[in-house]
């Protein structure tokens, strides 16, 4: 049973996420697996994702917090650092993970990534190319995708 022997840190993080949610972010654990979180991130204002509601899944592996959480977008998003499977290119989820980081700080970083796409370190080659060759047009596409897939409907 996945919920037995849940480390106190995970319980505490969960409680704090629920009692003091970060602005524009909600995360709640799944009922049958307390290591699996359903996450929603609101598209940051003044980004192409503004107005969108993005669903993600977050899983805390057995080694957490010595290993990073696994996070993935479930909502389709047009972003150079997020691929079509929703995987995210973010250093703190890889080699720059630190056990001092938390679910909250990870999600805040993802929210920040939406505000600051980095086409120089792409996960999605095509989108990155689009971003670099014609940023205005890429941003329009991102807005369009936000309307189409992340309208919250």
């Amino acid at each position, binding site marked *: 049973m996945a919920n037995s022997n849940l*480390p*106190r*840190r995970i319980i*505490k*993080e969960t409680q*704090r996420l629920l009692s003091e949610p970060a602005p524009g972010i909600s995360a709640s654990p799944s009922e049958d697996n307390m290591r699996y979180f359903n996450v929603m991130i609101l598209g940051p204002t003044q980004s192409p994702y503004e107005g969108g509601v993005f669903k993600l899944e977050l899983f805390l592996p057995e080694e957490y*917090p*010595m290993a990073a959480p696994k996070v993935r977008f479930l909502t389709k998003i047009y972003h150079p650092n997020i691929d079509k499977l929703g995987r995210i290119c973010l250093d*703190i989820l890889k080699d*720059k993970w*630190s*056990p*001092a*980081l*938390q679910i909250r*700080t*990870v999600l*805040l*970083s993802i929210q*920040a990534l939406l505000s600051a796409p980095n086409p120089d370190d792409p996960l999605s080659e095509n989108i990155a190319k689009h971003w670099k060759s014609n940023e205005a047009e890429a941003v329009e596409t991102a807005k369009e995708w936000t309307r189409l897939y992340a309208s919250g409907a």
Partner: protein
Amino acid sequence: MGISWSNTNSNSNRRRRNNYPPPFPPPYYYSSDAHPPQLPPPPPPSQPPPPQGYYFPPTNPSTTPYVGTHPLPPAPPPQTHSFYYSNGYATPTAAAATTNAPNYANRLHYHPYYANQGAPAWAPVRPPVAAAAAAAPPPYVDHQTTKKIRNDVNLHKDTLRLEIDELNPDHHLVSFVFDALFDGRFTIYYLAKEEEKCRFIPLYPDAFAPISFPFQKGVGQKFCQPPGTGIDLGFFELEDLAKPSPEEDLFPLVICAETSMRTSEDETSDGSTIDASPHMQITQAVLVKSNGIGPFEVKVIRQILWIDGVRYELRELYGIGSGSTAADFDDNDPGKECVICMTEPKDTAVLPCRHMCMCSECAKALRLQSNKCPICRQPIEELMEIKINNDDK
């Protein structure tokens, strides 16, 4: 009151020399007996460096400790206890001081001079760390515990000022805030060199004789040098006043605070009194004029404790709130809990970056998996467990 750590690993420095990857950044050191002039100056650290210099134990390296003050938080009552650490060492790196887990997108970087507000301090000494073989196995990390020494008098280094004597516009007067558990005296030196046993010799004794002033015990006192006793700094080159020479132990401004004879409670455990060696706190500073004009600004470079014949250097620890002890641990205060388990109070600091961020259990677990500080990702060279005793208040 007080904080202490004891050396449980007296042979570790020798082992360490051979087991570490090149330290980051490379340390330098000096000794009051022997200055190694062949050592290069420290490279610029990648993060704001603490202002202090480095210290190599002048006596037996296995017993010479280092120390940290506990600078006063802005509001809580002043304290004068110190951190003491045997067999440790430091490097010039210091970085994000934080009691909260860092948000990657918004990491905190503290200037060392401001980082002590609300955070106690420590002062490491370190033996030289030889550049070791690069491909070291999982690095050996010292895990040491602490023992306490008490600082009887503490000059608040961020309050040290040099003001113009209004009666003698060419002359400058020293002022600062201090705490003292006993009566004692301050001695002010200009361009003074540290000799053995923490004695200070002015370079120009005829022109600038040391001057002493008595003080009485009490916390949060302001010392203002009386008008007419100041010094005309026009004799000095501005360059000389602005330049610390830690490798020569020479500093433009040195303030030595010593308490008078100590009380019976300071007797050693076997009943014999410690001989009359004074208890001193020494503050070493440079005097800077921005663009060569305007008033002098005092920048404290280093603080030293001299207690019962042992010299300690004061350094700050980041992330150790004044209440971060097991006794008053609040389970719901994220600032006091270990950043890894978020359960136990933090009691272990990472060296050389000085982030007090973990409990000892998590520190032990972490070092098996990573050699990076959880807060700043700098390599861990040593873990220091700080036991805070509240039973001797």
